[in-house]
């Protein structure tokens, strides 16, 4: 059994089932992100681990102990909320000390631990400030220190970066990851931001309508999405509709042109419709571009995104986007220009529904 074991977890609110038979084991010290759109059930699972929601079915074990009968204040869990949730009547020191006081620790112990925690988040100099005197990023760091002060078995982070501006978000997520690795604490992180999840997680759970569509490392999730939903939710992806020509050799027809996939297509017969996915960064129209597959098309539009230029091509009935690095010496294609898109057949992924 894993350190944090969720078995057959279900949750219904009235007639609406928001979590369907969710199973997962999270190892000690692992950082797992729950990624998905609003209403997919990711926060509900987090709240069930914390004890704020009671599962309609299934069990939650932490370090071999069933959490079912335990109230939230009896579970050894630290939680950080999107809205910071610092106590407005207490200063930074008292906020961090709160859980330790509740636990009945002595004053010297509390002071030592608070100092240690404030050192961890580099805010020792703000110990006397009240929450309203801190920026959003500082408040969230204090909330993190407060959650960690009680030495929880599991740290739960409920979209802790959503209320912050872009720059702070990036620096704070790196800080969270660094602290998590330093303490080796098992962490569950809920987010709807794919970049956040990809950048700091050991594993990602992509949630869709109350189910885990895929559980895997960021690399697996990005490069081999298991379903169309995962493919479309994580990163930008071209979904290309084709027809199976010969499943045994992986031949498919796209825009009237036959190409070969790197593997045979299982569970399909000739003439079946098939959805294929191609990441924008996998294709190129540059002279001498490498790739065993070529598709001719016409440039529809291009947009400048800073470090890359995203160009849209019409190939048959499909519109395919591809990215090229912004090279000032290169002349980008113009709308209406005929080009050949090259890519490796292994980069084309067959998408399950």
């Amino acid at each position, binding site marked *: 059994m894993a350190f944090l074991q969720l078995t057959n977890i279900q949750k219904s609110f009235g007639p609406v089932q928001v979590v369907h038979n969710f199973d997962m084991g999270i190892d000690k010290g692992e950082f797992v992100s729950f990624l998905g759109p609003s209403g997919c059930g990711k926060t509900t699972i987090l709240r069930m681990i914390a004890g704020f929601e009671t599962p309609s079915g299934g069990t939650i074990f932490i370090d071999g102990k069933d959490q079912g009968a335990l109230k939230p*204040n009896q579970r050894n869990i630290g939680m950080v*909320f999107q*809205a910071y949730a610092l*106590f407005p*009547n207490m200063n930074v020191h008292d906020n961090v000390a709160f*859980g330790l006081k*509740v636990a009945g620790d002595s004053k010297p112990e509390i002071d030592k631990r608070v100092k240690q925690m404030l050192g961890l988040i580099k805010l020792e100099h703000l110990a006397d400030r*009240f929450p*309203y005197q801190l920026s959003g990023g500082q408040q969230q760091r204090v909330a993190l220190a*407060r959650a960690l002060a009680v030495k929880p078995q599991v740290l739960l982070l409920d979209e802790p970066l959503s209320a912050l501006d872009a720059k702070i978000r990036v620096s704070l997520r790196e800080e969270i990851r660094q602290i998590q690795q330093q303490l080796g604490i098992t962490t569950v992180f809920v987010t709807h931001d794919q970049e956040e999840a990809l950048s700091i997680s050991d594993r990602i759970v992509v949630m869709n309508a109350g189910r885990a569509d895929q559980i895997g490392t960021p690399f697996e999730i990005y490069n081999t999405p298991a379903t169309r939903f995962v493919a479309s939710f994580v990163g930008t992806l071209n979904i290309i509709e084709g027809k199976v020509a010969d499943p045994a050799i992986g031949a498919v027809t796209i825009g009237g042109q036959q190409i070969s996939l790197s593997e045979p297509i299982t569970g399909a017969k000739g003439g079946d419709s098939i959805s294929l996915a191609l990441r924008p960064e996998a294709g190129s129209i540059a002279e001498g571009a490498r790739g065993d597959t070529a598709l001719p098309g016409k440039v529809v539009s291009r947009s400048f995104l800073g470090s890359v230029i995203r160009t849209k091509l019409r190939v048959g009935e499909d519109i395919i986007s591809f990215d090229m690095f912004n090279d000032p010496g290169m002349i980008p294609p113009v709308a209406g220009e005929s080009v050949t898109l090259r890519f490796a057949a292994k980069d084309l992924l067959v998408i399950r529904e």
Partner: protein
Amino acid sequence: MKARRLGAWIAIAIGASYFIVPLLGTLEFSLRMRRDAYSFDAYRSVFSDFQFRETFGYSMMMAVLTIIFGMLLVVPTAYWVRLRLPQVRPIIEFITLLPLVIPAIVIVFGYLRLYNSSSILPLTGSTSGTNMLLMFSYMTLSLPYMYRAVDTAMRAIDVRTLTEAAESLGARWPTILFRCIFPNVMSGVLSGAFITFAIVMGEFTMAALLNRPAFGPYLQLVGANKAYEPSALAVIAFAITWLSMGLLQLVSRFQKSAPAKA
């Protein structure tokens, strides 16, 4: 534009005069006890009256008790409704508004029928029982103001998330309520307390019909028998109300905690 502004100022001046002129008249009359000279004789007479001290002290004590017990009733109720029973909020709001639409005399007659000496709970059968009944009736009267003041203060903080944060840190209900929630709704609690204080100090109907020596019936008694002292008492009563209102403003202005957050 200027004419409209002038009109607004005239309207304000008329409105203000409607309230201020009678008060100035009362104040001026209360100072004329000594013939041909202004003096504080009426105030001296009031303050030296044993009954004044007794009734004022009694009402003060009742006000303090009403505030304490009112808070113990209202704060947990408002908290619980906000946290766990948001669907019963309209019902609670309706109940708390009832004392505004049901006249005090109707309420007190209801009390006398329910709690008379031959009833199951004969509160009027003893002095302490009647005092308790009077305090509960004051709690009822102050409920519309007290509940709203506390509920508004709770709206300014994220009660649910603060509760969950405290719970996740191991806190139990009493700790959450008294260390995390109560201090953050203190401005509302104090606002409700000052309004309650002002209501209790001037209340007549309940105290008179329950036959308790409160400040309201004393005001009426003096008003019926003396000339200058009633004006002095009216000014004192107004001063108490204003003091309460001033403190209320002060508390809401100098609140230490964070600004309201949605």
